[in-house]
């Protein structure tokens, strides 16, 4: 569904329109559940989180403004935040397995061909290009953290480094990404 349609739906939901809420749920819940499942690695738990996510959407949709960002960015942030809250507050569990595919788990490739129109293609390509310029292991840390909910400790295990090194990597990676995506004014 196009971003403008979702934006209209969100505004109706903000006004208490239940039918619009159902339409919004139908249009966006598979993606939000997908996000939560990748981070939580547990579909039943992710579905519980999804309920909470949509209750927040129902209550807070009136705070959404199109100027602040794309609807899917707003919705995705709510889903990711709730999933991360849960995954960070529970006891560390061993990572089940490394993601299949290449070292970035295929995430970078997903940017090459974003599904649907919900994401700005230009943003996706800019992120792909800028991520591509970040050093290999730093980039993998960013992607695994953001997409799969890896903690610093889990990343430290995976890359055989200590947690402080990982923290430094993450911050260097973020700084590089920021300079590339939003170059500072001269």
């Amino acid at each position: 569904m196009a971003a403008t349609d979702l934006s209209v739906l969100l505004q109706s939901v903000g006004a208490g329109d239940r039918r619009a809420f159902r339409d919004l749920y139908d249009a966006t819940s598979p993606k939000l559940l997908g996000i939560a499942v990748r981070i939580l690695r547990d579909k039943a738990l992710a579905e519980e989180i999804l309920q909470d996510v949509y209750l927040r959407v129902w209550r807070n949709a009136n705070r959404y403004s199109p100027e602040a960002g794309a609807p899917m960015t707003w919705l995705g942030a709510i889903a990711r935040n709730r999933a991360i809250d849960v995954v960070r507050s529970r006891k560390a569990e061993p990572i089940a397995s490394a993601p299949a595919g290449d070292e970035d788990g295929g995430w970078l490739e997903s940017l090459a061909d974003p599904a649907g129109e919900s994401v700005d293609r230009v943003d996706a390509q800019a992120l792909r290009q800028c991520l591509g310029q970040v050093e290999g292991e730093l980039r993998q840390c960013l992607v695994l953290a953001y997409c799969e909910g890896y903690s610093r400790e889990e990343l430290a295990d995976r890359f055989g480094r200590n947690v402080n090194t990982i923290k430094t990597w993450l911050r260097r990676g973020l700084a590089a990404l920021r300079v590339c995506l939003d170059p500072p004014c001269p």
Partner: protein
Amino acid sequence: MPMTPEDADALAGEYVLGTLGADERAAFGRALERDPALRALVADWERRLSPLAQGVEPVSPTADVWRAIAQAIGPDPVVQLRRQVLRWRVATGVAAALAASLAIAPWLRPAAPPAAGRYVAVVNRSGDLPALIVRVDVATGAVTLRPVAMEPPAGRSLELWYIRDGAAPRSLGVVHDGAQQVAAPAELRNDARTSITFAVSVEPSGGSPTGGPTGPVIYSGKLIPE
């Protein structure tokens, strides 16, 4: 300890990545609530990284998820009204006029428990959407009219009547757009428990010149306990 702009942006970035530890994350979350500048940094990171999240494989939720959400946000006023009307029908034996498919504006939230001495009539065309809701509070003598989908023909007025079984219709006045209150005539207060029908007729502009309905009755409904 004051944060440098670099620290703040790094924390905002790690908050969005999700790599802050539980305590650090909670503390940052509290700071976010107080600090709009931090919220702007976070929003920037959400925007920058969001395309990655959209690459995720969709997973269809089971139907239970929506059921739980729908239950948590409370019953839909339309569905609730439908149920209430069903109860009225069962309780009062009111005819099929009330079985009509009801779609109703959200202001009508029949959440309050039925009070003694309160009556309601859903005035409609048979099988149509409700045109007018009439509420009668016998205790206060107030009659409240809520037009929902009244359509007066051009240059005409719609006039509301109440009719006791076997008696001549009595006018409750012309129905305007928007909610209005009219005083209940004494007989209506006393008669509310007996069979009362409300009807809306098309009249010359300003209302019936004769004191009785002169035009066609286009809507009607029975008064029943609320």
